[in-house]
């Protein structure tokens, strides 16, 4: 049977609208239903890889065929890169939903929580699958508005202030993206991404095009939290409830920030040396400044949020090196290495940062505080949480044989071979800084003596929280197998090939 990409959007949307209706009459319905929906999304996304679908799956909404080789319908395109990111979204969303079954018992209005979560998942799947630039903006707004409501879910003082800051900055970014969609339509006369690539390859560079590209870097860079557009991230990710922090930091900034930016710059715009230098500079700044700002934090989740900025800098540096080397005359082999390292680090960071945020949530559930100065000696009371947190901290600091080591090694080797010696040196130094603040994170929470002011709120963790954390540890150990060629061919190589073959995207969709 062939793949139907619309189901990735329709299944969570049905869930988001059935849950308020039936949950009003039947209690406890929303938990079972949300779990079933996310589980079915995982099965369907893994099936793309197992069934061996080659190339792209293109559907046209409404069945309107292209008229004289000009596409007029809304296209949904599922190729290797989209399937890779949908796999990441499905895994993290299922584990977060299962964790939330136990964590969200102390909030009222649980109905709305699961409905908003399903709406956010539907929006993210739509962004990744869309083949049309205005549709990408609409799905991006759906998922981002759902996330504004989820950050403010507990309606405490700090959560409301963090949500307001997030909304104003995110609103300005969305406006800049809308403005650049309008400017692109003005220059090319079409909204389909493959058709825009075809028209722009004939026209060449112009000042208006460079202005549009800069607006897009600012707009999507704010969604991906690169320096200097990062001001909303520490507040929003530390004030949200823990399963939502795991989803936001693990999936949302990747699916709507990094994916959209690199899909547009590799496949739609022709490769440009100035833009790749700008992206490399922004990535290096994020890597360095994010790590240095995390050294002085005493709030658990704020430290993890600043660390997210730093690791996103690694991914942008990896993909930026690949973009710089692909401009005519560079070596394709080193570019492949760099892009593979960047994408591998993306999936590693999603799993590891999700696990760290779930651990922080478990600590907060037991003790009621997030300040590291008041915690200590929890390794005896919570052995599962401390063990999983130790493995995640070692993995994200680049210790072999965990998966973080392999992805950072690929990026550093590609930087050295491509003669970016400054970037490679900074990457190695920031790796040791990362190890520094994560070891302090472990020591302050789990291994020092118990402070007298700390008291326990609950005797035990619920089963659902323990299950999610153990599954994520097993996933992170399985992911280090992606380096071997047998697994790499199935999962990682199709994604890398889509980005390397920059104009193959156009030829496969509209055949020009």
């Amino acid at each position, binding site marked *: 049977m062939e793949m139907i990409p619309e189901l990735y959007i329709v299944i969570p949307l049905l869930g988001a609208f059935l849950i308020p209706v039936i949950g009003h009459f039947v209690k406890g319905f929303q938990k079972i239903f949300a779990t079933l929906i996310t589980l079915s999304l995982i099965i369907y996304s893994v099936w793309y890889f197992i069934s061996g679908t080659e190339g792209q799956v293109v559907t046209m909404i409404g069945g309107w065929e292209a008229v004289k080789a000009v596409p007029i319908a809304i296209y949904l395109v599922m190729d290797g890169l989209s399937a890779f990111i949908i796999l990441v979204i499905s895994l993290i969303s299922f584990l977060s939903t299962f964790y939330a079954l136990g964590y969200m018992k102390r909030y009222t209005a649980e109905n709305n929580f699961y409905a908003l979560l399903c709406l956010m998942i539907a929006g993210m799947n739509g962004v990744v699958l869309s083949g049309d630039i*205005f549709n990408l903006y*609409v799905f991006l*707004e759906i998922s981002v*508005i759902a996330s*504004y*409501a989820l950050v*403010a879910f507990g*309606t*405490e*003082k*700090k959560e*409301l*202030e*963090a*949500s*307001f800051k997030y*909304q*104003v900055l995110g*609103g*300005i970014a*969305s*406006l800049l993206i*809308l*403005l650049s*969609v*309008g400017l692109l*339509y*003005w220059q090319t006369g079409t*909204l389909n991404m493959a058709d825009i690539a075809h028209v722009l390859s004939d026209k060449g560079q112009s000042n208006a095009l460079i202005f549009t590209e800069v607006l897009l870097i600012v707009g999507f860079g704010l969604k991906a939290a690169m320096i200097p557009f990062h001001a909303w991230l*520490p*507040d929003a990710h530390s*004030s949200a409830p823990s399963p939502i922090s795991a989803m936001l930091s693990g999936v949302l900034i990747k699916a709507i920030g990094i994916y959209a930016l690199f899909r547009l710059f590799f496949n739609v715009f022709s490769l440009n040396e100035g833009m790749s230098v700008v992206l490399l500079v922004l990535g290096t700044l994020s890597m360095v400044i994010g790590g240095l700002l995390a050294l*002085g*934090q005493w*709030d658990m989740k*704020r430290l993890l949020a600043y660390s997210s900025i730093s690791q996103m800098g690694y991914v942008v540096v990896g993909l930026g090196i690949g973009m710089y080397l692909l401009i005519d005359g560079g070596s394709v082999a080193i570019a492949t290495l760099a892009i593979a390292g960047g994408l591998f680090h993306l999936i590693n960071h999603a799993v590891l940062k999700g696990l760290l945020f779930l651990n922080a949530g478990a600590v907060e559930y037991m003790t009621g505080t997030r300040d590291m100065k008041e915690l200590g000696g929890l390794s005896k009371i919570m052995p599962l949480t401390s063990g999983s947190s130790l493995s995640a901290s070692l993995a994200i600091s680049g210790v072999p044989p965990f998966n973080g080591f392999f992805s950072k090694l690929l990026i550093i080797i590609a930087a050295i071979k491509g003669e970016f010696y400054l970037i490679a040196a900074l990457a190695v130094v920031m790796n040791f800084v990362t190890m520094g603040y994560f070891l302090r994170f472990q020591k302050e929470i789990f291994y020092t003596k118990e402070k007298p002011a700390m008291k326990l709120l609950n005797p035990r963790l619920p089963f659902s929280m323990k299950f999610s954390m153990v599954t994520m540890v097993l996933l992170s150990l399985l992911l280090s197998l992606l380096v071997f060629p047998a697994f790499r061919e199935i999962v990682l190589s199709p994604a890398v090939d889509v980005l390397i073959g920059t104009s193959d995207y156009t030829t496969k969709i509209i055949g020009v």
Partner: protein
Amino acid sequence: MTVYIMCFILFLVGLYGVLTRRNLIKIVIGLSVMEFSCFLFLALIGYIDNGLAPILKAGEEFPKYVDPLPQAMVLTAIVIGLATTAMLLAIAIRIYKKYGTFDIRKVNELKG
């Protein structure tokens, strides 16, 4: 060309409102003014000289119409702007209840 420059001036007026006003509601109004300038810019892109409004009548001849695609984009974007403004106002009135003030210099508990 002057109409596009006036759209840009309206965008800058809205941006000035977001950056310099202290009241939370005035920040929301500034963001709304910025959004309206974007809608105006999008609708003006599709204008063709001496074109009619794109409404089909029964009959066979089709005169020269203005481009209808940016008008569809603006309709969708207006609904998205409505949702964003409603979300912002709901959070703003809850901040008023918890903090007791609309002044943005006093709403600063999250630091560092």
